[in-house]
């Protein structure tokens, strides 16, 4: 025995999607049709089961953060070489990357706990993203080594090795300073084939070390220590480019 009303109407009624007159018509039908009445009970049970099982899976805090960073990077990364280099936008992106790399890389070593690491990184990145919205960042846009160095040294509190490698394909674009974990960090911005590379430099007591590489969120980083300074170059460029820049910087006085 098959009910004349289509199953779709039953669904529509159950989901509250029928118009007033159609719903009323269906209700009249419902009083006479055991099949539809039973169907309605089944639908209700199914919905209850789905609700009780709590199948909804929200995004994790870490995914949320990744997306936020991605959006921020997308919003501020330039696409074409033709557009005027929006240096401070790059630098803003650089700062976000710095937080991610430094915090995940170094702080993580201290605490050795993924959750804690992710939480802390997230908090700092969030705080930084908020600060980005407050206004333009300060820094210096120049390809003159002396100008950039003069600007950076006083603010970073140490002698920052600033070199332009335009003739090797790494054009110096400028610099800025940031404060990470309570200390000043110098940031040098280079451009390689239209892509920004950011080199973060801070003082360390550690011995010189060979480069360590890694990637996070499709960004590559190379980190090394030399002359009581630690360098961390970050970019979405080819990892080989970062290695080349590392060698150029290490070989320069």
């Amino acid at each position: 025995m098959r009910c004349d009303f289509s199953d779709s109407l039953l669904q529509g009624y159950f989901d509250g999607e029928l118009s007033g007159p159609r719903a009323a018509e269906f209700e009249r039908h419902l009083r006479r049709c055991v099949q539809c009445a039973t169907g309605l009970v089944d639908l209700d049970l199914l919905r209850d089961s789905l609700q009780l099982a709590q199948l909804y899976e929200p995004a994790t805090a870490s995914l949320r953060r990744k997306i936020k960073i991605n959006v921020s990077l997308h919003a501020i990364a330039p696409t074409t070489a033709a557009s005027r280099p929006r240096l401070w936008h790059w630098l803003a992106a650089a700062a976000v990357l710095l937080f991610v790399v430094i915090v995940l890389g170094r702080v993580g070593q201290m605490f050795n706990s993924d959750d804690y690491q992710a939480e802390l990184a997230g908090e700092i990145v969030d705080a930084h993203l908020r600060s980005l919205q407050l206004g333009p960042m300060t820094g210096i846009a120049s390809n003159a080594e002396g100008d950039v160095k003069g600007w950076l040294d006083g603010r970073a509190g140490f002698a920052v090795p600033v070199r332009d490698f335009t003739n090797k394909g790494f054009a110096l674009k400028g610099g800025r300073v940031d404060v990470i974990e309570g200390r000043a960090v110098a940031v040098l911005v280079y451009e390689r084939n239209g892509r920004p590379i950011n080199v973060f430099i801070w003082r360390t007591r550690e011995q010189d070390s060979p480069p360590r590489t890694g990637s996070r969120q499709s960004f590559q980083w190379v980190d090394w220590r030399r002359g009581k300074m630690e360098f961390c170059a970050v970019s979405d460029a080819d990892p080989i480019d970062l290695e080349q820049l590392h060698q150029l910087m290490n070989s320069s006085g």
Partner: protein
Amino acid sequence: MSELGLEDRERFEQLVLPHVDAAFNLARWLLRGRTDSEDVAQEALLRACRFFGGFHGGDVRAWLLQIVRNTCYTWLEKNRPLELSMEFDEELHLQTCATPETLAIAGDDRKRLTLALERLPPRFREVLVLRELEGCSYKEIAAITSIPIGTVMSSLSRARRQLYSALTNSSQGACP
């Protein structure tokens, strides 16, 4: 491809980011796994970012979920093409002989429900997830999936029937 300015970015963050849960949940159920879904959800959000200039108001959740869905299907076509051609064998699954009580018992079992939902063909799974988990209206589901409302209704009906029978079968084994 256009870039977002700072103002657009703020607008994007205010309008779109509150729906990241919905984006992930849909991806998770379409791809049936958390890791791939995180990647695809991220990619979908980036696409949304890129296309945000083309969003001129309206239902932002539906707009985002449409992008998520398309991104998921593209991913499935590339990585698990067989899954998309999966059809539900109604003959096999509709031999139900359960009582409402057995379904209620099955409903306590989150694992069993997850499995049953994941075994539905993607086209049925998505309407069910959008309706039951996301609470979307038929109109929203039609917009997200680009299928007519009539088809949404019949898909939903078949999806529910299949899920119901899959659950009742699995909860009590052979029919007496």
